[in-house]
């Protein structure tokens, strides 16, 4: 299942784990990404917490926890290759995986069709 947030993050949900990243629309708005800071594995996060940072040449942007849960894995290679966020935001440049604390939170998130309309 693929879900999207109003902050332009995508979530790929498999069982009770969500793999998360930022959307192509987000990377296009950001411009060339030069730095990314990921949360630590094991961190408990609440939906809406600022848990990661993405910096373009011009500015820093916060990345928020799209859902509540625990960080189970982070994309370890990403901080060494921040440009991947521009070239492959939807697959290779995933940021972190969250073990969901409350699956009900997913209901309020957008599906792909709704997100496409949102950014149109």
């Amino acid at each position, binding site marked *: 299942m693929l879900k999207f947030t109003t902050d332009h993050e995508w979530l790929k949900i498999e069982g009770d784990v969500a793999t998360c990243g930022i959307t192509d629309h987000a990377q296009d708005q950001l411009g*060339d990404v*030069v730095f990314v800071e990921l949360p630590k594995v094991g961190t408990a996060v609440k939906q809406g917490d600022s848990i990661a940072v993405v910096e373009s*040449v011009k500015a820093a942007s916060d990345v928020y926890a799209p859902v509540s849960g625990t960080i189970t894995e982070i994309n370890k290679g990403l901080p060494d290759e921040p440009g991947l966020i521009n070239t492959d935001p939807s697959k290779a440049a995933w940021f972190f995986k969250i073990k969901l604390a409350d699956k009900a939170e997913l209901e309020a998130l957008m599906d792909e069709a709704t997100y496409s309309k949102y950014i149109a």
Partner: protein
Amino acid sequence: MNSSCYDTLGRVPLHDLHVALGGKIVPFAGYEMPVQYATGVLKEHLHTRAAAGLFDVSHMGQIVLRAKSGKVEDAARALESLVPVDILGLGIGRQRYALFTNDTGGILDDLMVANFGTHLFLVVNAACKQADEAHLRAHLSDVCDIEVLHDRALLALQGPMAESVLARFSATTSAMKFMDAGAHEIAGIACFVSRSGYTGEDGFEISVPVADVRKLADALLSQPEVLPIGLGARDSLRLEAGLCLYGHEINTQTTPVEADLNWAMQKARRTSGARAGGFPGADVILRQLGEGTVVKRVGLRPEGRAPVRDGAQLFASESAPDPIGHITSGGFGPTLNGPIAMGYVPSALATVDSKVFAEVRGQRLAMIVTALPFVPNTYKR
């Protein structure tokens, strides 16, 4: 081109071209300007250092200072009353960096001054151009006629291939050396050209009539080496070159000595020089030239990968409670492939390899004082 309205932005003559080229238009100094094109800031920056980049800087002010006597020396003497710079010694066909100072030794603007034989030609920052014009009129109108060139645009062609590109349209620009300035015909258009720029690369700044700027821009952009470059890359290029940006490294609260711009103040205007002092803030500036300053502008490199940006406070250690300095410009240097910054630190720490700590998102990040420029200049001297 009037940027004095607070809620409407001015447009440069090439605005439609920037939009047609896919420019991302943002407000800057009262104008709508392209911060980048589809190429993106990183690639635009790298392209400029590898080939040739074309920048539209028409938002800047162009001013002619002509002595009522008709003698350029009189205009030079008059301008010397406002800048700590040797203008009288600036030869015909030469350009020099200058600073308007105020009574406390602070900086009102930085500018380029060129001697065109019959008059001086000034290029000033967009954000300050109205105040600069008023400043010149308030102090020099008895001796000089001051004419703002509203009907001229300004382009910059920068990079190792700029000379060969321009040579296809002009028979005389290749012979210019760094900081030469004068009238040159480019693509059949009468231009004012200087071999200078704001990127650390070899290149040219070209003043062109508004009526002809599209023709010139199209001609240069038609060359395979040339890409249009936005203000985002202009900023990362000048940061790598260690150049000051008015409002950041220099402002009314910084003196040229604190800003490490001593080189711009020639001997003739210093204590014991032929025309020592005689500019606003001379007492402060000349004293600082002799005694030193409490703070100094330096280059800084974060130890890690996180950029440290304008406004970040600097501390002597990871736990020291009181800031000792601040960052004035910071971001990412594409040529260096890492973060870079400039800022003010106590003079005692203004030596290469000194370590200070910047506070970023509640954490203290180590930064090392680094020699400027970060990237060597390639001026054609």
